[in-house]
């Protein structure tokens, strides 16, 4: 997606807060520079932001709901909602943290809708391991050898199966911390809870996971 003259420039988008374009342009953070331009209606810059963050958002959502097709749609929903909310982004947090926050809401709204739509039916499949599309496994990033890739693939299946048995809150806490590498404070912002709650959720989630993955964990 490249910027072109026919792309809409949104004159009504009035940035709020500290995203001063000039300051952002001289700043080291490429995200803030692109955000400042996007807040002025530059869709090309926003497209660059999408490209920079789509992988993490897609991976996060896919690990949360275990359905690749829905994760694909929901990830797009995240970026569309982010575009609409961009004038209110104040750059107090990292742009990526802000996106995780939107992704959190999108996933929980989707889960709520699914539960309502399937009311009266057997709806235990939401967040369940059985819903994982076996064809959706992708090779982990990195330059692993084929043996390592296979080992990681098998481990991934086992971890995903164990993650599916956690509550959504525990699963999200583990994914944000141990996979996405967010800080406690950032996770608290994303999940709208206190740092103490994050610590508690992480403690119990890891404990459950380590029990379920005891063989794999101890052999490494």
């Amino acid at each position, binding site marked *: 997606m490249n910027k072109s003259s026919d792309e809409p420039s949104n004159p009504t988008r009035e940035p709020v807060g500290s995203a001063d374009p000039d300051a952002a342009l001289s700043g080291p953070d490429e995200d803030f520079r692109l955000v400042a331009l996007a807040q002025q209606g530059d869709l090309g810059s926003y497209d660059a932001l999408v490209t920079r963050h789509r992988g993490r958002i897609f991976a996060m959502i896919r690990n949360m709901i275990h359905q690749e097709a829905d994760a694909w749609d929901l990830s797009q929903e995240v970026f*569309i909602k982010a575009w609409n909310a961009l004038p209110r982004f104040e750059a107090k947090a990292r742009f990526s943290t802000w996106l995780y926050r939107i992704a959190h809401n999108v996933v929980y709204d989707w889960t709520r809708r699914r539960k309502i739509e399937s009311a009266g039916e057997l709806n235990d499949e939401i967040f369940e391991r059985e819903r994982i599309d076996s064809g959706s496994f992708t090779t982990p990033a990195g330059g692993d050898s084929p043996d390592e890739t296979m080992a*990681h693939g098998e*481990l991934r299946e086992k*971890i995903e199966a164990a993650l599916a048995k956690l509550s959504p809150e525990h699963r999200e806490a583990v994914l944000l911390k*141990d*996979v996405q590498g967010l800080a*406690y404070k950032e996770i608290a912002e994303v999940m709208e809870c206190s740092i103490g709650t994050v610590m508690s959720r992480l403690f119990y989630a890891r404990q459950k996971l380590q029990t379920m993955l005891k063989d794999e964990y101890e052999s490494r």
Partner: protein
Amino acid sequence: MNTNPDETTLALWLEDELHGDELAAMEAWARNEPEQLAAREELRRWKGMMAAALPASEEPPYAEFFNGRIRTAIHRQEQEPAAATPRRFSWQSVLMPLAACAGMALTFWIGMNSRPAAPEIDVAGAPKAIPVDPILYTPERGVKAEWFSSPEAAATVIVLNGVAAIPDSMDFSATAATGELREIDATAGVDGNDTETPDL
């Protein structure tokens, strides 16, 4: 750090989230805490295993199409500015309901305090009413309708001029609604007798 750290600081140190002076102080404290050092190593090993198995980033399938769909959705929104633009506060939104309420109250007050324009006719035993000449409609062309009223006789007469004479042969009963015999129960009368039908 001579005293034990608080729970949050310890957790942040275990997660490798401390920096600067805080980190240095905790490292100094942890030199004499082999259990905490082991716990941190355990946590690092755990996170290493998770990160190796589950990538933090995965390109979505058809990545360019992924971006394209987002761009299309945004374009569509831009073409519907009225729907997408958030409503702003307006005094009009407050004043309009107030004006409507005031109007209703004024109308009610006028209704309670106004007098009828036409004089009332007192008819013994009858509710008071404003006499108004009725408007008569005739369904056929050439027919003229006249209306006469006598309050003394408590009678009203409507005369229709121009209506064709009604022949003596006309059977009024044919125009009246009459009940038809109908089968009450399809299973009745199996013994060959006529089904009894209630008088209608």
